[in-house]
């Protein structure tokens, strides 16, 4: 079954005619994803390697029955593309685009979540979602994944690959890997995805990959304690990271946390979640739990 994407996914790529869009769409298609359409305004009627291109997502949906969208447009057009996909009836929207203004996302996320029609928005600034053996939507390299019972949700793109890679090397396959992205306003957060994994019969254990900043890990820890029956293994990057850009004092107050890796690891361990000290250790703990 997996979550978010699978055999029933009919993918439309927004920005298919762009260089990166066509490259990754082709890779997704080669992986076995059912790529049904592309959208580029003004290029309706043309095609990219046989995939029809439409002027609007609305048209792509009505003509091809697309139900998932991959957003591959430049940052200043990303929020509009997400809204367009949502209003056209797309059920899962995955936005890879990096550098989308946070307030654009706050508005787009409020619209998508507020519409109450159960649409999932993943990203922006995320590597995408892969359900190994079923479908791959985004830029996660399919060859590092393998089919299996571990769900993975991560704020970091390349860290996701690293950990998936280590899991696969240890013979532990994945049900679905979800990169939720590291932007300030994510379309989906840890809790949204953990809820799906908890209900997914193909998932037995979940790996949560966090990083410094915000309090998403702390909230996920608290929520999991009350709501998750499946085991969680976590990793948090940034134990030795420079303080870098802070959001001022107010940032820390809101979250009720300093946003440090140490605080996050403490919160996760306090909720009974085992935390690996590096990606390799995470894979080892998972392998150990899986027996």
């Amino acid at each position, binding site marked *: 079954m997996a979550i978010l994407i699978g055999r029933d996914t009919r993918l439309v790529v927004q920005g298919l005619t762009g260089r990166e869009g066509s490259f990754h769409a082709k890779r997704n298609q080669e992986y076995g994803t059912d790529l049904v359409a592309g959208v580029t305004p003004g290029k309706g009627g043309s095609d990219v390697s046989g995939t029809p291109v439409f002027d609007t997502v609305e048209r792509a949906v009505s003509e091809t029955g697309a139900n998932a969208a991959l957003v591959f447009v430049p*940052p*200043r057009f990303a929020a509009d593309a997400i809204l367009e996909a949502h209003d056209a009836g797309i059920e899962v929207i995955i936005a890879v685009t*990096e*550098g*989308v*203004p*946070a*307030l654009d996302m*706050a*508005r787009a*996320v*409020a*619209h998508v*979540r507020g519409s109450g029609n159960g649409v999932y928005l993943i990203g922006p600034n995320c*590597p995408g979602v892969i359900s190994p053996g079923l479908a791959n939507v985004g*830029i*996660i*390299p399919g060859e*590092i994944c393998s089919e299996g019972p571990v769900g993975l949700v*991560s*704020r*970091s*793109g*390349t*860290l*996701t*690959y690293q950990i998936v*890679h280590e899991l696969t090397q240890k013979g532990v396959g994945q049900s679905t890997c979800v990169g939720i992205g*590291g932007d*300030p*306003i*994510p379309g989906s957060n840890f809790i949204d995805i953990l809820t799906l994994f908890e209900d997914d019969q193909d998932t037995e254990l979940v790996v949560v990959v966090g*990083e*410094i*900043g915000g*309090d*998403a890990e702390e*909230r996920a820890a608290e929520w999991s304690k009350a709501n998750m029956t499946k085991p969680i293994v976590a*990793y948090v*990057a*940034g*134990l*030795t*990271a*420079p303080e*870098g*850009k802070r*959001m*001022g*004092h*107010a*940032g*820390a*107050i*809101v*979250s009720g946390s300093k946003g440090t890796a140490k605080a996050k690891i403490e919160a996760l361990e306090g909720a009974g979640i085992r935390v690996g*000290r*590096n*990606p*390799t250790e995470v894979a080892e703990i998972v392998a150990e739990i899986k027996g």
Partner: protein
Amino acid sequence: MDLFEYQGKELLRKFEVPVPEGRVATNPDEARAAAEGLGGKVVVKAQVQVGGRGKAGGIKLASNPDEASSAAEQILGMDIKGHVVKRVLIERAGIIESEYYLSFLLDRSERDVLGMMSAKGGIDIEEVAETDPDAIARVHIPPLLGISDFHARELVFGAGIDAAARKEAIAIIPPLYRAFVESDASLIEVNPLVLMDTGRVVALDAKVTLDDSADYRHPYFSELKSAHEVPEQERLAKEKGLNFIKLQGDVGIIGNGAGLVMSTLDVVKAAGGDSANFLDVGGGAGAELLSNALEIITSDKAVKAVLVNIFGGITRCDLVAEGIIDAFGRLDMKVPVVVRLDGTNAEQGRKMLADAPDELLIAEKTMLGAAEKAVALAHRGTD
């Protein structure tokens, strides 16, 4: 980007949030002229992007232009927690009746904008949050609805602001929110917001952080940025499109993705080493970017070894290899470069590196192995 106080206040003034009349000076003569222009008593304030300048002597009262000039002379050049004072803000001084706290910030968890207000202003708000959390009124502004007058009333009545300041405090909140949204801020903190003896309510300080992703729609921001001094190496890196932060160790780090780079710093530390920098080439880096990254890292004499840790997704390992080979070709490479490639086109990249052998170019298969190797090589160099 964090703005200086004077820049934050300029921005608030544009949105008709009342701020004290003031002028910026970069030397004592300008400070004198500014004080003459303003007339009466003035305050001379160090413009640095760090808290605690008051305690450090960075704020002085001056009764006349001469005093303003000498205050500026004392403050300019001062080192406040590692920040050298290049500018002072001269503002007309007034009599303050009360100090409050008011801020808007991006709330990542609730995915909206949070307004906070307290009648306990002028002090560290974290302290208030810990010792007297009920003294802070919090109101979430729905991003689509935006601010409505009742939000302002809930903040002001919720914080228990003095009756004398209420009307003006309520009136300040919607424009402050508009300044936040229309400038794509992630934080606007006014601490203190003050009630003057004249009955006016004024933003006496302003801490503003802007969202760099939105720069493209605010051409005006590039002016603001020009006032910010950035270390040469960071400036170069930024120009090249690299996310670079200088650190104190000797292992140069290049990686793709902030999470992976942070994790790399962690494993270098765990291997007994110290990273010389944080450098994220971002997603989809090409050969030229990688080559530039290597050039910037190795330009730092403290660097004894470099660790390139790439897990390709949108980034293609063949292009990474091409960039590394290019750097080895055009630079006089003096330190060992340990490279670990995985993911998109990794085999192709590994093969390209194997086909261009160099004794300073070491390929490793795992992230932990690569970190250990780089640390060992860096230590060998210093032993």
